């Protein structure tokens, strides 16, 4: 009988170009996504007087530095940032890489655009100079983030030197309660295993609750694998994945489609495949989550209270909790639902897809935002779809700002930042100190929970606003 292999193992083996005796592998990269920050990679290539080995495997879209209130490059105030958005146009034109540029409805956040265009497919290796590349594993690809030197290395060789990571399985079985979404699932996972819980591992998310998620939901879960320390996150391709991909512009067509689907069916982990680590969660026990601190692992059910540093297991943990509470301006023991919020951001590669906007709009419909609130769709196509469904009208009628696609306030590189001490309910992925601007206090939540905060002015258990 053939040995049982994990999905990760199968994809890895299929991409080995060279296995060295010292344990290092030259791994072939099928897809390389690029964004406005990839200019450094192109510059390094130019210094070496080299060309891209496989421009046909590259796909680019500006996202980090584009404005959310204008589509004009000329409006970007910082000349360095303006230059980066201009360079992606020049670099892709010269090299032959496919570009989804500003003004093209296909432009958006690279991790929204890849799956949406069918560039991301099961069984592929995919990299991008961005840590949230783990997102693409939702379709059964091996996808991970790299730095700018490795970006240049992939441009030059279409390969990367890698030591094979370990495999970890996170199983979430059971049914999610109403109002509990993919974002709550991944925050609950990170709260359980910690922000370094999966360092050195590729995570496979499994179990009935994961299988029950749409591709959009799976993208949200895989997106934050990096916040659990994981090298990558993956979900086995199934009927949901295949029907999502069918007809997308860069998905295979005709006979090639049938051949691809037959291959995709072979990718899931074999029964009996073993993982280096196994973790399980009960889906029914997951509630809407809110982070209280400055690490994504600082996540609690909305029904909880701000924790007491005195309850920490050791003095180092106590000190770090106290530092986080001081930065966040929170008093231990306060019920989370009594924490006032100053601002709301719905967007980012974690939660800016159509399903996210629908979930938020459902809560907002017929209510008014009582604090400044933004919606930044993940791509021009998501925005167009939302407008076709009238979601923009729901948000605008409630007083939300309906803005142009990009990374926006998740990382603030384009100038979309909060003010010091402002408390933001954000559907993004990182609540790090200063992430959304110096002194800004970020709380990570789902789109539905962000909408609930927008219409009440404080964290609110969205389950009470639904139904």
């Amino acid at each position, binding site marked *: 009988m053939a040995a049982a292999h994990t999905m990760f193992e199968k994809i890895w083996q299929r991409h080995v170009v060279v296995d060295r005796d010292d344990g290092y592998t030259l791994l072939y990269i099928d897809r390389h996504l690029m964004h406005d*920050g990839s200019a450094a990679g192109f510059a390094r290539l130019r210094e070496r007087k080299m060309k891209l080995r496989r421009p046909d495997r590259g796909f680019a879209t500006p996202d980090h530095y584009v404005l959310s209130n204008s589509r004009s490059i000329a409006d970007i105030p910082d000349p360095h940032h303006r230059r980066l958005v201009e360079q992606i146009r020049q670099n892709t034109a010269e090299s032959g890489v496919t570009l989804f540029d500003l003004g093209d409805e296909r432009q958006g956040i690279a991790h929204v655009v890849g799956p949406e265009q069918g560039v991301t497919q099961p069984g592929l290796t995919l990299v991008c*100079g961005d840590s949230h590349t783990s997102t693409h594993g939702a379709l059964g690809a091996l996808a991970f983030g790299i730095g700018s030197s490795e970006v240049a290395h992939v441009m030059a060789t*279409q390969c990367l030197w890698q030591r094979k990571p370990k495999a970890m399985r996170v199983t979430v079985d059971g049914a999610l309660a109403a109002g509990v979404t993919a974002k709550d699932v991944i925050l609950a996972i990170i709260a359980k295993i910690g922000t*370094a819980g999966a360092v050195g591992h590729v995570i496979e998310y499994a179990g009935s609750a994961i299988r029950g998620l749409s591709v959009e939901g799976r993208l949200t879960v895989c997106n934050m694998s990096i916040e659990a320390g994981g090298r990558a996150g993956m979900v086995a391709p199934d009927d949901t994945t295949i029907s999502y991909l069918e007809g997308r512009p860069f998905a295979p067509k005709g006979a090639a489609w049938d051949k691809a689907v037959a291959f995709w069916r072979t990718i899931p982990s074999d029964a009996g495949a073993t993982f280096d680590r196994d973790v399980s969660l009960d889906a029914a026990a997951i509630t809407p989550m809110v982070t209280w601190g400055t690490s994504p692992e600082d996540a609690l059910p909305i029904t909880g209270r701000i924790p007491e540093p005195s309850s920490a297991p050791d003095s180092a943990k106590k000190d770090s909790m106290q530092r986080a509470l001081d930065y966040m301006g929170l008093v231990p023991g306060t019920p989370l639902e009594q924490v006032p919020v100053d601002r709301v951001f719905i967007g980012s590669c974690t939660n800016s897809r159509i399903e996210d906007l629908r979930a938020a709009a459902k809560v907002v419909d017929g209510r008014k935002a009582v604090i400044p609130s933004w919606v930044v769709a993940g791509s021009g196509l998501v925005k167009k779809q939302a407008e076709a469904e009238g979601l923009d009208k729901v948000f605008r009628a409630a007083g939300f700002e309906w803005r142009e696609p990009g990374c926006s306030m998740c990382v603030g590189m384009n100038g979309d930042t909060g003010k010091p001490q402002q408390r933001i309910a954000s559907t993004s992925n990182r609540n*790090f*100190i200063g992430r959304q601007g110096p002194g800004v206090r970020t709380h990570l939540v789902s789109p539905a929970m962000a909408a609930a905060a927008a219409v009440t002015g404080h964290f609110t258990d969205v389950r009470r606003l639904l139904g």
Partner: protein
Amino acid sequence: MEPFTTLEAVAIPIDQPNLDTDQIIPARFLGKPRDSQVKAVFHDLRYAPDGTPRPEFVMNQKGFAGARIVVAERNFACGSSRENAVTVMVDNGLRAFIAPSFGDIFFNNCFQNAALPVRLEAGRVAEIRAALHAAPGARIRIDLASQTVVGPDGRTDRFEIDSFRKDCLLKGVDEVNLTLGYEAEIAAFETKQRGEMSWL
């Protein structure tokens, strides 16, 4: 690439666990020329919003001038893939990082910049940090060939490193050139893949 062989230097202890790359270089300093980023290292940890140095941050304390080694807590440099987190420290003279664990992407990025990340057992790393706090300016010696760290207390610890990474650092190997030496294998892979996955 410049080789990394040995390094004996003043070391700075940084006690926060999960210190993310946004703390090493905040996003607002990215997307600008590398030389303009040098002063941004640990910016918001070093300076209050009004620009005054924060006395509690170790780099602002006496005795740590000329440091070339950072001794950190678990999951050091987690978060974003920004390679600037490595280059901004390298440009400030910091070329070796000792911690119980690292963010995976940062760990890989170090090797692209002739910098060495060293994993040691958490208890020992805590001991070294305590010794550095007690005697600011104390030195650490790292020898890559023998895979050893001599702490400020004179104790020697051996660390593990992949032999591939070790050789590349010791010899200053340019990874792109190394890979180009495998052109025949890459071309063969591409031919095989064209047959198997013709839809790509």
